[in-house]
């Protein structure tokens, strides 16, 4: 089975897997053949032994193809798509398009609103600050774009799922 594994805004590698026994894999990557033993304890923690070297690795599924992989204190945002699915889907790169609605992930209180409708914001820029769990949390814009709607005001209490703001991609040109 062949997978295309790509890093967000980074390289893509082709990885061929062949299952051997209960936990083993023969892996071809970068033209090298590796023998990997991958044992899972709990749903998301793996112990990997490759050529005698042991790595403890944590994996979180993110969406349909996304995997957040953490090892040795480093986090990799990866997408793994098997080649057949990729062929069927045409291009695998699905870019978020259209207006993005950002909702509160947990109950809290809006302590600051840093942008108004019409303001240009960049990806990762804090738009609203919500206090929850005794901490102030900046809620960033998911994309480069323009704030179309600000659904909350300072001092307002929000529940999980409450819409905070809507941001849309900038008009082309």
């Amino acid at each position, binding site marked *: 089975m062949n*997978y295309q594994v790509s890093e967000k805004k980074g390289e893509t590698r082709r990885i061929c897997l062949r299952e051997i026994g209960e936990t083993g894999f023969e*892996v071809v990557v970068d033209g090298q053949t590796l023998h990997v033993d991958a044992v899972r304890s709990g749903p998301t923690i793996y112990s990997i032994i490759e050529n005698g070297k042991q790595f403890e690795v*944590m*994996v979180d*599924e993110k969406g349909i193809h996304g*995997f957040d992989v953490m090892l040795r204190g480093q986090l990799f945002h990866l997408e793994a798509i098997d080649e057949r699915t990729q062929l069927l889907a045409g291009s695998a790169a699905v870019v978020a398009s259209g207006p993005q609605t950002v909702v509160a992930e947990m109950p809290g209180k809006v302590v600051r609103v840093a942008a108004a409708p019409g303001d240009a914001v960049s990806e990762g820029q804090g738009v609203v600050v919500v206090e*929850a769990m005794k901490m102030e949390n900046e809620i960033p814009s998911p994309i480069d774009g323009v704030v179309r709607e600000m659904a909350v005001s300072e001092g307002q209490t929000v529940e999980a799922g409450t819409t905070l703001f809507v941001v849309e991609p900038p008009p082309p040109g």
Partner: protein
Amino acid sequence: MFRKILIANRGEIAVRVIRACRELGIRAVAVYSDVDRDSLHVRYADEAHPCGAPPARESYLVMDRMIEIAKRAGADAVHPGYGFLAENGDFADLCAREGIAFVGPRGDVIRAMGDKVTARQTMQKAGVPIVPGTTERLSDAQITEWIREIGPPVMIKASAGGGGKGMRLVRQDSEVAKAIARARGEARSSFGDDGLYVEKFVERPRHIEIQVLADSHGNTIHLFERECSIQRRHQKVIEEAPGNGITPELRARMGEAACAAARAVGYLGAGTCEFLVDKSGNFYFLEMNTRVQVEHAITEAITGIDIVKTMIRAAAGEPLGIAQDQVRLHGHAIEARIYAEDPDVNFAPSPGLIGVYRPAGGIGVRVDSGVYQGATVTVHYDPMVAKLVTWGIDRQEALDRLERALFEFVVKGIKTSIPFHQRVVRHPVFREGRYDTGFIDEYMDGGSGGAFEDPDQDEVRRVAFVLAAIAAYRRDKQQAARAATGAAGHGGGQDPWKAFGRRLQMRGGLG
């Protein structure tokens, strides 16, 4: 000595106090809100009583209910822990009126230290150096006038302040009006008191605090300093003891100042004097915390003194039993506060079910925590999951041990700040101990930076990519199997498991 203590708190500090009670042969009474029935502190207690709905103001902050439970349980003392009612002078007074000992100082002492302006006046009288500035609440015009005379940079601070709230830095005269309005607004909404004062801004200070212990027999001693300069948005995240480059002479002077501060207010129990230390080694009183601190464990590690037990004994009228010249500083200790937050997404809170919990262990490692595998971190309270404390014979060993312990510590189901701590501990500037409160902003890009290259970087990357493929493969296979079972049960349709198998054969060729 007390027979029974009610612990008016939850989480790791409730567990900490219950441990002290058990060692002292005192029965421990826990309280729990509706979401805390399953919490660890309940399991460790001798008695447990419900105290209300999940929001703290309907449970852990309800004074009358705590008193009522204490009376019903026959508790002769209340330990408030930190947070919640710990620095509420009215609660201390209420306990005293009801004939229940409050493990901490008197209500008027808490109030005197809680109001920053009063505390500054008291410290000035006691000869303790304070940050240059005013010792009165000021009107807007007075603040503007003061800044015009002294010149920026200055800090406008809330008299009732704490935790970085109601605090505004002014770097230019033009910012004054806006800063006053902002600080007053924040102070009013956070503390219900919009009194402000002004302090000279200390550039890039270090945050050094002195642990103090006092009994009711006139003994006041200090247990040296803790350095708490690693802060994110005014919240401490890593602390160590002793402080970096604190000479025995400076340590002695700061210790004496802290004891003088405690004596000046008639302090009882465990308290902490926080100081700012500037580049030239001048120190200024910042505030006194009239409770046990989160980071008390690092002082316990270097002195061998059980601070929580000592404060309980002091509240019961017993003498400290140790003189200043008997307190020994041995080795070095570091604490990393592990929070339920995602360092990869701007430190957003990450509540939820802890699916896997495997704390670090071994020589020189202490973990104080209120959670366990299968516990849920709720949105209602402080997001701290665990305090990881390591001790070493010197700073180098304590740091190496912390790095090793962070490597071992596994928490899954929720995100934690463990990766952030790993980046701090490996940072060369932190390693050298030459840091101040600007460290995270300057060297860690506010917390997201400080990435390090593993010596086996290529291999680490490759393993990550391979594992993503393996995880995808296992998931695809599992889904196919599940779909196959479903299809068989409904007797028809295409068999996805077979389809997966075919795909495997088709694409399975290596290379």
